[in-house]
């Protein structure tokens, strides 16, 4: 079975299970290179976000996922073979807040390099700047990786995507899903100032996502 075909099957099953309603507010699906950043509440998040993109865009969009979770057995085959994920070391993003040891800093640098490399190959990315799955009630503070990524490639559009109800389909710690209707809202691309500071960039991005959640 070709991976293209498998990808279509998986995207269709994800849409069947999660029944997502999709809204584009202030941005349109298109060929432009983008970094989609979303709130994170479930393992299903990137699969569903990826599955609602038009097929052609899906082929050009790679999720960024934690290496420790996605690098064994079936998960690895899905992550690498189907989703074409960029697997990164977990903890790397928090380490780039420059508080960690030099090992963490190395990990952060490697992660950033991997993402920039993917962008340079004209791929779009899906990232979860909270760094870990939350309860779904609010959007946690962002790790700073997204800021450094923007500094490296400021021409790429950073598009906020708010996901809701996916935590009700497959909450943290559950294996069996319950089919609940989920919602995916794509917002307008961020418009940072050229010399935007880290704090203000992160605050802007965070606010954009929270506002989408209320819309």
């Amino acid at each position, binding site marked *: 079975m070709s991976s293209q075909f498998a990808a279509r099957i998986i995207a269709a099953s994800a849409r069947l299970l999660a*029944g997502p309603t999709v809204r584009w507010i202030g941005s349109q699906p298109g060929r432009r290179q983008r970094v989609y950043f979303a709130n994170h509440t479930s393992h299903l998040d990137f699969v569903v976000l990826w599955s609602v993109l038009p097929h052609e865009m899906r082929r050009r969009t790679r999720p960024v996922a934690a290496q420790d979770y996605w690098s064994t057995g079936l998960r690895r085959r899905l992550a690498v073979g189907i989703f074409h994920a960029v697997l990164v070391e977990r903890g790397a993003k928090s380490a780039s807040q420059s508080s960690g040891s030099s090992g963490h800093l190395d990990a952060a640098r490697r992660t950033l390099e991997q993402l920039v490399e993917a962008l340079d190959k004209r791929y779009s990315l899906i990232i979860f700047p909270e760094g870990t799955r939350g309860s779904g009630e609010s959007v946690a503070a962002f790790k700073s990786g997204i800021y450094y990524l923007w500094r490296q490639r400021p021409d790429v559009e950073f598009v906020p995507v708010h996901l809701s109800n996916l935590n*009700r389909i497959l*909450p943290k710690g559950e294996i069996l899903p*319950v*089919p*609940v*209707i989920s919602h995916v809202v794509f917002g307008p691309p961020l418009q940072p100032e050229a010399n935007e500071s880290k704090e203000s960039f992160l605050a802007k991005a965070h606010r954009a996502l929270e506002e989408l959640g209320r819309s």
Partner: protein
Amino acid sequence: MNFHADHQMLRIAGGVFAGLLAASIAGSILKHTVKSEHGQATVDNMNARVRSWWIMIGIFAFSFMVGPGGSMVLFALISLLALREYVSLIGSVRADHRTLFWSFFVFTPIQYWFWYTGWYGLAVILIPVYAFLFVPTRLVFAHDTKGFLDRAARIHWGLMVCVYCISYAPALLTLNIEEYQKQDAKLLLFLVIVVQMSDVLQYIWGKLLGKRKIVPAISPNKTWEGFLGGVASACALGTGLWWMTPFTPLQALGMSLAITLMGFAGGLTMSAIKRDRGIKDFGEMIEGHGGILDRMDSICFSAPLFFHLTRWFFVSPHPVIQW
């Protein structure tokens, strides 16, 4: 239970096809003649509804041709989708997760399986009795007492409406009516035609003449004119279709009246829930109509009554208790 396309079935199919065609043609004429903005919006919505009807009737017809199993599977899927809209809307907490999993993937298939195998005794009590006992028991083991009774009641209510009640529609195929062997499929068609036409006709009468609101607090679109006109014309239609049923014309009229009144009650009940939750539709799956549950609300309430009335009066023999 069995199916074959007798000449009556072909007549019905022809009638439905002609009706839809007429609606499509009327819609495209109106699209060019209606000029006002408000009128345009109404016509667009009407045309979207008609387009969706083509698709719904196509799927329904296909499942019919597959046979009784096809209808059971179709309605089981409808139940799952309806339950999904219901659960999505009324909300659930983390501790409900596994109980919901049971509701979707255990109770729903078993309910339809019992009907499919003709196990009447269990099909009628599975959800009212066993799911009723199971749901709170399973919830207890999720270790969360917050809103316990409320959560248990909501989940069970969803199973009753979306699974139990809807399953009575294909259950009509299992009735073994004398003089009507192998024709039960037409009974299901009769129910669906009368219920759905009652909705459509109430909509049309309401649009044409609607003035006095019946229950403005619940549904601002339901008027006495729409209700009376819709019920009367749907009953006339049902009576006119007596030849496809085991009923006499008078009995067909009585059945149609029961079906349309229950359908109306179902529509209002679901409207009350939607109003309470502050939304207009349960979903956006069916263009122009809203969600599956918006289309099925009247079937939910009319199917059980129609089934039991038919079974009571037309299926023999009834067990006679000898004291």
